């Protein structure tokens, strides 16, 4: 069975600082994708970043980057220069060949001014 674990229910960061959100996963598939989604208070899920498992290079999108450790099945999200608008729930998700996304339980990120 595929699983996704986010061990940090809540995190807090000072504005302009850097924070890392953790995610571990388990899958028996060799071809899969990993995603980080952001869910602000409006509750719409917004894609932050994605990583193809076959790519060794870590994905980067502006202030967001990932540390993908395939052997360890770890996929952490680093947010640099945190902004007040980054405050939200962040979900790690695993996508495989069966068509569904397996989501973690989420990490609530607070940004302090």
């Amino acid at each position, binding site marked *: 069975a595929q699983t*996704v674990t986010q061990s940090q229910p809540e995190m807090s960061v000072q504005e302009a600082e850097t924070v890392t959100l953790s995610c571990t996963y388990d899958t028996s598939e060799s071809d899969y994708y990993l995603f980080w989604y952001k869910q602000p208070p409006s509750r719409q899920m*917004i*894609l932050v970043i994605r990583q193809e498992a076959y790519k060794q290079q870590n994905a980067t999108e502006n202030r967001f980057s990932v540390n993908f450790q395939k052997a360890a099945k770890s996929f952490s999200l680093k947010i640099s220069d945190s902004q007040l608008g980054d405050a939200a729930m962040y979900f790690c998700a695993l996508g495989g060949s069966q068509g569904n996304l397996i989501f973690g339980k*989420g990490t609530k990120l607070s940004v302090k001014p």
Partner: protein
Amino acid sequence: SQTIHQWPATLVQPVGSPLSLECTVEGTSNPNLYWYRQAAGRGLQLLFYSVGIGQISSEVPQNLSASRPQDRQFILSSKKLLLSDSGFYLCAWSMAFPETQYFGPGTRLLVL
């Protein structure tokens, strides 16, 4: 560009009443479509997905059903709502497995 719509945004229904939630996608053809439910403070659980008109796969047994009458239309239904059907329902689309899924704004359903 592609957009995804869901309605209604909020719905309050009595136990035992029927349900119909609609999702439509614009700007693409033959998308994969998905229905998820999110309970309060939890992650998302996949309910149904569809790879084409009339093709529906169910992930969990439940009181709900889904239909895809048109290429870019996905409907979530129930004949008789239960209290446990309350939650936040999200529709999503993608072009293929396991490509990125893009989500609609969601529907808040409260069953009383």
